C-alpha cells in the first residue's frame, strides 16, 4: 500500500439517517395539499388570529386551532432575488436561477409565509413588494411545504 504522511482522512458515507417522519397535528394541512391542492390556515378559536405557516395550537392562547381553507393568493411583503442555489431545497428543478425568495401575506391570514416565486422573466424587479402571487401545486406531492411554489397572478 502507498504510504501516507499527511493527516489521515477517513471517508464516512454511512451516516445518513433516514426517517418515516410523523406530521402529527399538521396532518390536516398537508393532507389538503396532497388530496385537494388546497391551502389552509389555522385559526385560534379564542383570539381569532390566523397563523401562516399554520400551527396545531395558538402560541398566544394555547387553544387547539380550527382549519380554514384559503385561496392561495397573496401579496409579496418583501423579497430577494436568489442567484445561489442552496442545497436540500425542494424547489430546485422547478425554479431556475434567479428565482425570488419572498415573504408572502396570503389573503385571509395574519402572519407571513416565506416561499419561492417563479418570475416570468429573469430580469430583476419584476417581483417586488406589493406583487400579487398565487400558489401552484406540483404534480407529485408528498406532504412538505415544497409541494407548491408561487407565480405572479396574471
Amino acid at each position, binding site marked *: 500500500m502507498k504510504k501516507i504522511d*499527511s*493527516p489521515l*482522512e477517513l*471517508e*464516512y*458515507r454511512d*451516516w445518513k439517517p433516514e426517517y418515516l417522519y410523523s406530521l402529527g397535528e*399538521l396532518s390536516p394541512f398537508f393532507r389538503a395539499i396532497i388530496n385537494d391542492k388546497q391551502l389552509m390556515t389555522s385559526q385560534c378559536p379564542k383570539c381569532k388570529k390566523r397563523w401562516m*405557516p399554520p400551527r396545531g395550537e395558538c402560541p398566544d392562547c394555547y387553544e387547539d386551532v380550527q382549519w380554514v381553507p384559503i385561496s392561495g393568493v397573496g401579496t409579496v*411583503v*418583501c*423579497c*430577494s*432575488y*436568489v*442567484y*445561489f*442555489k*442552496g*442545497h*436540500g*431545497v*425542494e*424547489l430546485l428543478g422547478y425554479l431556475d436561477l434567479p428565482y425570488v*425568495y*419572498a*415573504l408572502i401575506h396570503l389573503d385571509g391570514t*395574519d*402572519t*407571513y*409565509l*416565506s*416561499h*419561492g416565486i417563479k418570475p416570468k422573466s429573469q430580469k*430583476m424587479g419584476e417581483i417586488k*413588494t406589493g406583487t400579487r402571487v398565487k400558489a401552484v401545486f406540483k404534480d407529485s406531492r408528498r406532504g*412538505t*411545504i*415544497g409541494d407548491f*411554489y408561487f407565480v405572479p397572478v396574471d
Partner: protein
Amino acid sequence: MRKVAVVGIGTTPWKMRNAERTFRSLGLQVVKKAIADAKIAKQDVDNVVYSIYCESMIRQQIPSVLMQDYLGFQGLPSLRIEAGAAGEGYAFSAAYAHVASGLSDITVYLALQKGGDFYDFNTRSRGDGFQNGMFISMDTTWLQPVMPSVPGFLSTFCLVPHMEKYGGPTPAQLARVSVKNYNNAYDNPEAQLHQKVTAEDILKSRIISWPTTTRMSCLYSDGACALVLASEDKAREITDKPIWISGTATSTYALARAEPDSIGRMLGTHIAAQRAYKMAGVKKPIDELDLIQVHDLITGTEILAYEELGLCELGQGGRLVDEGITERDGKVPANVDGGRIACGHVGGVSGAYGACEIVRQLREECGDRQIRVRNGRGVMQCIDGHASMSSVTVFER
C-alpha cells in the same frame, strides 16, 4: 450576585479546515492557552461550560462528555449550551451565571466547532458538504425545503425589508463594511483571510441573494477559543488586568414568526441590548463604548446590529459606515478582528472569538491593531441563522 471577570483567554488561528487536529485536540489547545494566560493551575478550575453548536458537523453526538474527559476535568460539573450561531453568547451568559451565583469560583468556557470535515462526494466539494450538512439547523418543516441559504434568509427577512422601511443601508455601504472587515483581518495574524479588497471587488463578486454578494457573506471555518471566568475575589488574586462582565442578556424573538413589526428588524438584539445595558449602566452607547464585535453573517446584519444596539436611530446605520465611525480608528470600531466576513466563522465560536478580541483590546495588547481605549467598555453581540436568538454582553475594564 457576585462580580465576574474574564481572567484568561485562549485562541487559535482560524482555518477553513484544520486537518491537523480533531475537535478534541483543537479544544484542548485553546483551554491550555487560556489557563496559561490566566496563570492558574488546571486544578483551580471548578466548572466547565461548553458552546458546541452542531453535532452532525463533527459526526459526534453528546460531544461535551468526550471533551470533558479529554480535558481531564474528571468529577467537575459540565454544561453544554446550543443556540445556533448565538450559542456562544447563550453559553457565555450561563458561564457568567455560574460564577455570579456562587456555584463556581473559576469556570472554563470552551467554544468549539469544526465544520470542514463535511464533504460532498458527488460534487467533490467541502462547501457543498457544509451546505448539505448544516441545513438541518434551520426549521426543517417550514423553511429548509424552500429557503435558499442563510445569507438569503437574512437578506430577505432582515436586510431588504429594512432598506424598504428605513431607506438604508445602500449596496455601497454594505460593500464598505466588507472592505473594513477585510482590512481589519489583514492585520490580524489569526484571521483566515489576508487580502486587500476594494468596494468594487465586493460589489462585483457573485450575488448570493440581492443585494448580498459572496464577499458580503461570512466564511466557514474550523475554530475554537476558551475564556477563564473568575469571581471578584479570585480575579483580583489572579490578575491585575481583570476584564469585568458588567452586563449580559439573551433574547429569543422568533423572526420566522413573521409578523409586520418584526420584519426588517433584529428585535431580539434590541431587547437583549436594553437588558444588558441596564445591568451595566450603559445609557448612551455611541459615547460609552470603545468597540463592538457584532454578527456580520452578512454585512447587512452588521449594519442592522449598529442600530439595534442603539448606536444610532433605525435606518442610520449606513451613515455610521459613511462617516467611518466603525472603522478601526473611528469612534466605535466594529469587528476589529475582521469579523465573520474575513477573520473566520463557525456557529458557536465566532462570537466567543469576538469576546477574546474585546478582552485583548481592553487590555491594550494588540500592538499595531490596538484601538484607542477611552471608556474601557466593549460589547459582543451575536444572533443565530434565524436572527431569532440574540445575545449581548458588555465587557468593562
